[in-house]
């Protein structure tokens, strides 16, 4: 009875904490974009534009004003929910983000699923046999995964599984040309196709996902496996595990219900970190697999000094990060009854 409001307050507190972060992000992203070299007005004016037309465009974009004024205008737009227009793609930033974010999230989500499915069992296995050859092998494998740049792994996988073996569909983005994208519900193609009852398309979308997701997932194996192992080791040493064993609970019950559930707490925190990390690494994977996600968008935008796009991207990522952390906190409070009760 006392618990609920306390936890609610915790979540509220987290939300409050996010406010300075968001303000910080707005300021930093604004300054960062203005520090970018290149003159958007020149770029925007296109080839063969004259001085006057460049100047005209500079004025229409508001770039002739002083930085503080530009900043105020930007904040004003933000408050009205306007993210501006991306000059490099010619679309409103908001549209771009809403179509591209699901692509990135789908990719990252699948990558993490893959990563968790591989890394957690490895970590548990390693923790139950510390310092054995299995432990060393696990360490070796997951470290190998994180040792290669993602773009290299990606290209190598494409070369092997698509070019040489032909097992994988052409790396042409989210869906092969043969299929039409499913009606938009969530933006996740696999899920949307399933909702639509179109299993063929769902399967095709899934097939497109495998290579990029594995590429990204390989990269995130190590932190998850390492954390799982460390947390499991620590928990397994705990007195309550001994109690559970002494009470005759079965090995699986001890390992999963008692040890793993406790060990999962630090793993969840790591997952949050890994997720935001993977969203960053997306940038490279998306480029390799022609994935129309938010990461490749950001790269392009950054290279051409597309202010609105970069700002919009950074802001949406920050929001995502805040939401993610909130989710983690909530999961944490769900799993760990101690939270919010003692200091």
């Amino acid at each position, binding site marked *: 009875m006392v618990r609920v409001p306390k936890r609610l307050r915790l979540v509220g507190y987290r939300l409050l904490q996010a406010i300075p972060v968001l303000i910080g992000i707005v300021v930093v992203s604004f300054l960062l974009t203005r520090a970018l070299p290149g003159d958007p007005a020149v770029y925007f004016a296109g080839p063969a534009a004259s001085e006057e037309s460049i100047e005209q465009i500079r004025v229409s974009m508001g770039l002739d004003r002083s930085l503080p004024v530009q900043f105020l205008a930007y904040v004003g737009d933000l408050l009205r929910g306007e993210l501006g227009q991306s000059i490099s793609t010619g679309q409103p930033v908001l549209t771009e983000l809403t179509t591209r974010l699901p692509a990135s999230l789908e990719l990252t989500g699948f990558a993490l699923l893959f990563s968790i499915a591989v890394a957690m069992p490895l970590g548990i296995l390693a923790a139950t046999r510390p310092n054995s050859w299995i432990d060393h092998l696990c360490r070796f494998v997951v470290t190998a995964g994180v040792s290669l740049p993602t773009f290299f792994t990606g290209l190598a996988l494409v070369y092997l599984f698509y070019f040489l073996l032909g097992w994988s569909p052409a790396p042409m983005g989210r869906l092969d040309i043969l299929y039409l994208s499913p009606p938009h519900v969530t933006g996740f193609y696999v899920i949307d196709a399933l909702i639509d009852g179109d299993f063929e398309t769902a399967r095709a979308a899934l097939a497109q996902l495998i290579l990029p997701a594995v590429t990204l997932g390989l990269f995130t194996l190590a932190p998850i496996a390492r954390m799982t192992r460390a947390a499991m080791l620590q928990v397994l040493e705990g*007195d309550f595990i001994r*109690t559970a064993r*002494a*009470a*005759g*609970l079965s090995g699986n019950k001890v390992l999963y*219900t008692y040890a793993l559930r*406790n060990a999962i707490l630090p793993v969840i925190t790591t997952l949050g970190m890994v997720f935001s990390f993977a969203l960053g690494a997306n940038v490279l994977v998306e480029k390799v697999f022609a994935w129309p996600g938010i990461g490749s968008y950001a790269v392009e935008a950054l290279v051409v000094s597309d202010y609105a796009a970069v700002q919009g991207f950074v802001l949406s990522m920050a929001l995502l990060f805040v939401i993610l952390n909130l989710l983690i906190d909530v999961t944490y409070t769900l799993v760990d*009854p101690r939270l919010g009760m003692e200091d």
Partner: protein
Amino acid sequence: MSIPLLDIKALTVEFGTRRGVVDAVRQVSVTVAKGETVGIVGESGSGKSVTSYAVMRILDRAGRIAGGSIVFGGINVGKADERTMRDLRGREMSMIFQNPRAALNPIRSVGRQIEDVLIEHSLATRADAREKAIDVLKAVRINNPESRYHAYPFELSGGMCQRVVIAIALACRPQLLIADEPTTGLDVTTQKAVMDLIRELTAERNMSTLLITHDLGLAAAYCDRIVVMEKGRVVEEADTATLFANPRHPYTRRLLQATPRLDSKVADLLPEEDSRRRAPSARPPGEVLLRIQDLVKVFPGKEKGDEYRAVDGLSFEVRCGESLGLVGESGCGKSTTSSMIMRLLDPTSGRILFNGEDIGTVPGKRFARHPARAGLQMVFQDPTDSLNPRWSARRSISDPLMRLGHVSGSALRAKVEALAQMVGLPEHLLDRFPHQLSGGQKARVGIARAIALEPKLLILDEPTAALDVSVQAVVLNLLVELRERLGMSYLFISHDLNVVRLLCERVLVMKAGRIVEQGSAEHLLDRPEHPYTRELLAAIPHPPSSPPRVSSESEDSVIAARWP
């Protein structure tokens, strides 16, 4: 004689470590008959726990039973397969541990944890598990079991957690209960309540109990028979009365002697031939060194109105050369008081007059450079925690000398070595790191550091709580000696009246931040006036040579006092 329930014969347990194989238990034979309570006593590391783990077969991966046999109720535990063992554990024999809070899964409600065991052993189905779990909670006398069912361990007090652990252990009505130091870390009063509960429940069910403890007093109070272990071996076994009346093995004798009793003097704790024996000489107290007036410490809570008065208007004084004892149960504010006197913590109000100067007004942050700093030193409760793990003993002892004494170079070396000699620390240990030292050695390093600047007042915050009785005996004698040599005053903090009495002429009894009684040590122990003092006294288990075994009549009142 009937067949014993548990029959351990020539048990040897080995651990494979990186420095080769360690024999933790060698050739140990112990039997426990039905309904019997057998105690295993011995110092830390003597193999008590390992023996019990071997019985349950829950040794670490590194450990293995290298020889001997363990037969429980006709089943050879050493040879049985894991299935059989799983059935045995919890159902036929079960175990409770030290530090009850850590022994419970922190994120599972206690009711569920009890259910897990019941369901595992097919004593309940999912449908009636809850009801049965509540019954079990009732059996261990937990008030309001229906709502406690949902509680998480962190929401319960230590004593209550231990009851839950007992509930888990006894849920399936096993025949043997192994209790491994079940009350370490609990208050004396709680300890008594828990032990009484165990005795009562086991008697009621005609169970056997194997009680593992290093506290001879406790073993004497609750066991029929006692097995003494030293360095992995059983050195003596006898029924309780015989053992105490006529200890045969020298180790047993030493153990017995080192255990403080109501009438023992500090020198008595060490064998007569030990050169470290010291008798305190009663010196007339000098003038007032420290005067505490109306000291209050309020800790702000998370919310308004949530504040906590840890120390609530304390006034007392310590004279030059005097030793003052401060006793009270856990959480009554003893450490808070000492921190304030040490100027590690700023009091909320009140005065701390040291040598007539009010040092309470100097903020703790700036006290490091105050001239009085060197005059006030402290020995901490946990010797391990109080030493910087990255510093050698020498460096730790040097620190105050360099900072406040401004000694350096060869003078520093000489001084440190002199100090080490003074506290009886062999010189070759000075370059070791804390983890390479034993508890007693660490305590000495801590003491050497504290007396390096020859302080006028030394606060001892439970300096022996983490030590074995025999080490405690040595340290207490050392403290007596040092006091005489250096003319210090002590403020000795403990929850164990018995120990305080050995060192202190005068004792304050504290409860909930206030002093409830004070007086000379003798007077207080002989004729305690305040009921709280009496309760504290009654809860201390004593070896039988002096008062008889603890009677069970006071038990209800104790429980009532703790769990209203």
